[in-house]
Every structure is written in C-alpha cells, then in structure tokens.
C-alpha cells in the first residue's frame, strides 16, 4: 500500500504562536532566578538518572559479596551496600523511578482533575454528586489510601502511580472547580453563550485555558509530593517492587546496616531532598511569574 503525501495546509499562526510561547517562557525564566535554579537542578537530576546507564558504572543489581558495605573509594564513589552493589549506580538509577512516578502522578492527577472539575463547575447537577464523592475521598489520609490500594493490587510501578494519583485528584478538582465558578459569570463567557457557542465548546475554548496557570503550579506540588510518597511507600514495603532500585527501597534495605554504612540511607536521602526542593522551588517561581497581578503572559 502506498500513501500519497497529503499537503496539509499549515496554520501559519500555530508555529508563530509556539515560538511566541517559547520566547515568553524563556523571558519568564530569565526574570525569575529562583525558577531557573529549580529547573536547572531538575534537569541535572534527570540527566544523572536517565543517563546513568551510559556513565560506565557497575550494574545497579550486580552483587559482589566480597566488597560489601565498603566506604566510598575511587572504584565506588558512594561505597557499596550489604550485597556489594555499587551505591552510586543504585542511587542514580533510583532517580528514574522517582522522576517517572512524580511526573506521571502530576500529569495524571491534573488531567483527570481538570476534566472532572470543568464539568462539576459548569453543571450544578453533576457538581452535587461529584463534589460529595471528592469530599469523601479527601477524608481518607492519602498515604493510607495509597498503601491500601497497592496492597490490594500488588506492587508495581504502575500501581504506585495509580495509587498516588487517586488521592490527589480531589484537590485538583476543587481548584479547577473554583476557577470555573469564578469564570462562569464573567462577561466574556456570557458573550460566548449569547453568540451561540455550545457549552462543551465554551468549556474548552474559554474556561479551560484560564485554569492552566494555577493548575501548572499545583502540578509541581503534586509532583514533589508524589516523589516523597513513592519513597514512603517503598520504604514501608508497599511501593516499588524490592528488586527495582528506588530511593525508598535503597533506604529500606539500608536501615538494618546503617551502623556499618550510613551512606546507604544518606545518599538516597540527600538526592530525594534535593529533588523535592528543586521541584518546589520551580513551582514557587512558576507561581510568581504566573501571578495575574504581575500581568505576565505565559
């Protein structure tokens, strides 16, 4: 079967719009050193984690019992754990899990919350039902809910992501709904109704874009929270399967041996703290530059 390439008429404004947005984002970064710092640290973390297999480090799972619980040395910069596995390699690889979980939870929770919040904000009937359900969901401590879900479904990275997403959704729904309620009575929405625009179209075209600034900021906090909770869950044994190195798993294993080699807990702990700090710093900076009072367009 052969396809004849179809010349699609390109929207000339689309590329212009994208480069404009990119320029706007760069401008915002330059004016906001906090955000730039947070973002840089995150980029370094991501390069370290996802580039780890390319650095010529020992396999994170390769055991070498003769060299176990060693102090840092030229061969093993962070030392080795109780099976003689290279800690540096394990900690860097562990970053992959944390970043993937953090980003996935943030993306899933915001998109689900956005969809539900938009509908709840615009339809009174849906609102009453959905919000009571969200209230109920919020009344359960999120970490307990996540533990319960993982123990129900078994431990895998996917299940951890789902379990951490569910408790975050109600918070996003509340945020989106409050913005929608505020926008619903704005004149430009009334104008859209008066000129015959259908409700779904109004939601997507007029309401949704205006929920993005607070939503993006909220997403960074959810991401930071998810990174911590993934470590919690792994630490208590209800998270990432133990054969995968994640920061929580490494610390959980190391807690028996921390008199012999404190590094097993310290290094993943430091990486965890730096990552969360960087995400939060980035989020704070983002909030400042998206603040409507500063009249910055993103």
């Amino acid at each position, binding site marked *: 079967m052969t396809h004849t390439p179809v010349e699609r008429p390109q929207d000339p*404004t689309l590329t212009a719009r994208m480069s404009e947005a990119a320029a706007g984002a760069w401008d915002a970064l330059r004016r906001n050193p906090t955000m730039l710092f947070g973002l840089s640290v995150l980029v370094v973390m991501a390069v370290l984690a996802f580039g780890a297999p390319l650095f010529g480090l020992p396999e994170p799972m390769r055991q070498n019992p003769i060299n176990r619980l060693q102090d840092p040395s030229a061969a093993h910069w962070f030392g080795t754990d109780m099976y003689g596995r290279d800690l540096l390699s394990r900690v860097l690889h562990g970053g992959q899990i944390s970043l993937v979980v953090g980003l996935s939870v943030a993306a899933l929770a915001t998109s689900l919350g956005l969809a539900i919040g938009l509908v709840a904000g615009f339809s009174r009937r849906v609102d009453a039902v959905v919000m009571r359900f969200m209230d109920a969901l919020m009344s359960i401590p999120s970490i307990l809910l996540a533990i319960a879900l993982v123990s129900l479904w078994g431990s895998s990275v996917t299940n951890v992501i789902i379990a951490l997403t569910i408790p975050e959704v109600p918070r996003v729904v509340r945020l989106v709904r409050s913005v929608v309620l505020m926008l619903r009575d*704005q*004149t*430009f929405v*009334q*104008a*859209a*109704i*008066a*000129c*015959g*625009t*259908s*409700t779904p179209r109004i939601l997507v*075209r*007029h309401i949704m*874009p*205006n929920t993005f600034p607070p939503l993006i900021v909220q997403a960074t906090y959810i991401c930071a929270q998810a990174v911590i909770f993934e470590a919690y869950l792994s630490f208590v044994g209800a998270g990432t399967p133990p054969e995968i190195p994640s920061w929580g798993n490494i610390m959980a294993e190391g807690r028996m041996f921390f008199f012999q080699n404190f590094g097993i807990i310290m290094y993943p702990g430091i990486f965890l703290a730096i990552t969360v700090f960087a995400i939060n710093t980035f989020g704070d900076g983002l909030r400042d530059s998206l603040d409507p009072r500063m009249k910055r367009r993103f």
Partner: protein
Amino acid sequence: MSAPILEVENLTKHFPLHGGLLQREVGRVHAVDGVSFTLARGETLGLVGESGCGKSTTGKAILKLTDPTSGTIRLKGVDITHLSRAQMFPHRRVMQVIFQDPYASLNQRMRVKDIVAEPLGNYEPDSSRAERLEKIAALFDRVGLRRDALNRFPHEFSGGQRQRLGIARALAVNPEVIIADEPVSALDVSVQAQVVNLMMDLQAEFELSYLFIAHDLAVVQHISHRIGVMYLGRLVELAPKRELFRNPQHPYTEALLDSVPVPDPRRRRKRAVLRGDVPSPINPPKGCHFNTRCPLAFDRCFHEAPPLREVAPGHMAACHLR
C-alpha cells in the same frame, strides 16, 4: 410600521435570597417587576434608569442569559421565554448583544479575529477558514478597525476599539436585533459619540433594531426613537423621544430630565429635586414604587400600583394623576 420584531410582556425576574441555617428562601430581589414593551424593525428603544433599576437584568432576561421568573418574550412572533439552551440556538442568530465592559467581554487569551469569528463558526460551520477571515476583515473595515490588527490580542486595543470589536462580533452573523447593554458607559465622552454614530450608521445600513440600555439621557436622546424610563423594576413611562422630553408625564421622568445639566448659567428653572434614596428592591414599597420619593404622592399611590396606560397617542405612563 409592520409587526414588532421583539415583544416583551409582563417580564419579571426575581432573584431569590437564601439565608438562615437551612438556606431557605428569606426574600426576593424584585429586579424586574412586570415590564412590557415592543420593539419595531429598524427602531431604537432607549431604556434609561438609575443603577439597580433592573434595566440590565431586563436585557439579560430577553437574551435568556438569565431565566425570567415570569412573562413572555416573543422574537419575530416566536415565544422564546421557555426555550432551553439548545432550542435557543437558532434564535440567538437573530438577536445579538453588545456588553458594557469592553475589557471583560472579550476573552483575553484569544486573538481578536478568533473572537469576532466565534459566532460565524457557530452558525456557518461549513464555511472555509479563508471565507470567514475575509468576512471578518470586511467587518473590521466596516466598524473602523484596521485589517492588520486581526492577529492582535484584546489588550493591545483601546476601550473604544474594543467596543468596535464587540460590535463587529455582534454583526458577524447578520442579526436583526441588538441588545446593547450600556455600550458606551465605560468609554470617554469623545469616543462615546464615535461609537454611537457608528451604531446609528449600521442601523441605517442593516435595518437593525436596538434595545439601547443606558443611564445617560443625552446619549439615549441622540440615538433613540422611543425611550422607556425604568424605576425599581418597573417601566414608569414609555414615549417617543421628542414627546418624552417635551412633555414628561411621570414625576420620576420629570425629575430625571431636570437633573440633566443645562449649559446656560442664566437660565433659572424650577427644579424637581428628588429627596432620599431608591428603596431596596428586596422590599419595594406597596402600591406605586415611586411613592416614597414622589412630591405628588397621595393615598391611592400607597395602596394601588398604577398601570402603564396610554395618556396621549403613543405616550404611556404609569401614574394615577395622569
């Protein structure tokens, strides 16, 4: 004149007030309280009154942006009072709106060509992008905006230009009636005149009917054929422009006309200055709503609401004394 294009009969809009522990209804704001009028093809009916007298709510109810409590609205003979959002769709094409605030009525995140094209996209979804763009460009020419501004965002325009954008959007689908809710109140006086003149030119060109809501008598006098005066949710007088200014029948209209400054320091007039404030629309006075401030009020005014009746040909007033 032929059959009226818009007929409003006994239009009422009450906003319930909830309070107390169980959010029971504790009162109602009588925003619009039985307003009736007709609008002929090619006519401008000015609706004036103080803030809070229900003139904007009347406009919103006619546009079905808020559901009327009771009454009938007929657009080209069709009763649209109880139509759902979906059922309203074909009728909205006939009746468009221009809002007061040209800043809030345009979505800040959209390009102006997309804002003006929105009604076109709704009512002519089959037209090509290029066709629509050409139509919008022509509209821009017509309302006095430059074609090279098509790709800009609303914040790059001045107040008067934004109101022209609002007018272009309203005109995009060739409506027959335009509800103009204080379209020039937010503009500078010099710009007001330009926008009002543009609206009058457009009316002549497209045979538009305007319901022109305003609180500024001078503007209304300039553009309207007939003027309705509202007080506390009710229409107290409705007359052709000249007749209303020359021979006001309702004491409130009289006071309103007297409050217009006259640029002649030597001219002394006996002035009917109103005392007191407008009563709350939550608890409007019994009988005639104006009885608390009326210099002529007598017994009957406190018991019986005067109906709007014809006191002279084409001149309606709601007062027991006429």
